[in-house]
């Protein structure tokens, strides 16, 4: 029952998000999700891409941001997330050597 590696075709992915195929194609072209497979008919999406596409759709719909704006927002959000994690990790390590606030 536990599944780790699952791939969706464009059609399956479109139903899962759910977001119409033409929008999926657009967010792929903008680099928001990067499926495996060169040709559109061979695209394979994984479950992390599903979460990413859903987030993109939420931002597009709920904040009324156009797709290129969503791509930029998501890139910046990812950078913030990476920096936060890096910061947490370094602080945890540093705390073992010195007293920090």
């Amino acid at each position, binding site marked *: *029952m536990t599944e780790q590696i699952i791939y969706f075709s464009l059609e399956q992915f479109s139903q*899962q*998000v759910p977001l*119409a195929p033409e929008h999926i194609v657009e967010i792929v072209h903008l680099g928001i999700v990067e499926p495996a497979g060169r040709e559109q008919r061979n695209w394979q999406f994984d479950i*992390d891409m599903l*979460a990413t596409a859903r987030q993109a759709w939420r*931002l*597009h719909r709920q904040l009324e941001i156009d797709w290129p704006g969503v791509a930029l927002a998501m890139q910046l959000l990812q950078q913030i997330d990476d920096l936060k994690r890096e910061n947490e990790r370094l602080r945890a390590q540093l705390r073992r050597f010195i007293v920090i606030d």
Partner: protein
Amino acid sequence: MEFKDYYKILGVDEAADDKAIKSAYRKLARQYHPDVSTENQAEEKFKEVTEAYEVLKSPEKRAEYDELRKYGQGGRFQPPPGWQSAGGGDGYYEGDFSEFFSSIFGNRGGDAGFGGFQRGAGGGRSYAIKGEDIETELPIFLEDTLSEESKTIEYHLPQVDAQGRRVKVAKTLKVKIPAGVSDGERIRLKNQGGPGYNGGANGDLYLRIRLVPHPLFDVQGHNLLVTVPIAPWEAVLGAKIVVPTLEGKVNITVPANSQAGQKLRIKGKGLQTKTGRADLFAVLKIVVPASSDAAAQAQWQALQEASQFNPRADWQ
């Protein structure tokens, strides 16, 4: 139930026009959007704001709401007897709106759910709809990532009760967590999400793995770091010491003249990867006794007099 003042929630005047309402919503949505906001209870506030906008942006719903608002100014709210919402319901609940909202507008969700999909012709009420997918975080101890683990998880499923209200039902499930999961990774449990409607399949449950911080080990990719305190003489003379790993202890050799912060690799004692085991690194930390007696002090003194070492040579 509690009366919701949608004008107050959006911070607009009763007479506000569509443009002012839209502008107020956009500003608050950006402020509280759960994907973006760092504010406390952003999600709750965002839902409130969305619900307020859902009502006030639609002339039909707004008119209905304005009518009812006359009854509810005191705080507690009961719809007047025989109140019938003017619009029909879609037969299933899509938006995550309050009891107050559904008492007025029934099951009419927003136009929120389907990106560019047609929702079925003529307000059709019988088409099958897949249940909601649920994502929840699953904290995992580092020790538990080394082998396949069975874990009992508890999560909440959205359901619609007999009165058409949206409720959360607790559910427990025993799941097998595969060996070698990493932080942030997702696992899908098919059909364990929200119930489908009109014969539609259940949604799926997604577990997002979160590695719990460990008192001894820090995670760096798949490698682990353990900070090892050593005495100054162990650093200078070298030593054989015992270091903890995720499974038992190992003996390692600290080479002579080791520096603080130096890393010693212990092969194959890191986290499980898809192909094998990553490494554990012992990071040396030189610690000095909290106090020393006269005899020890005399020995340090002798060392100081004999040594030419200048630790701040680089500053010159």
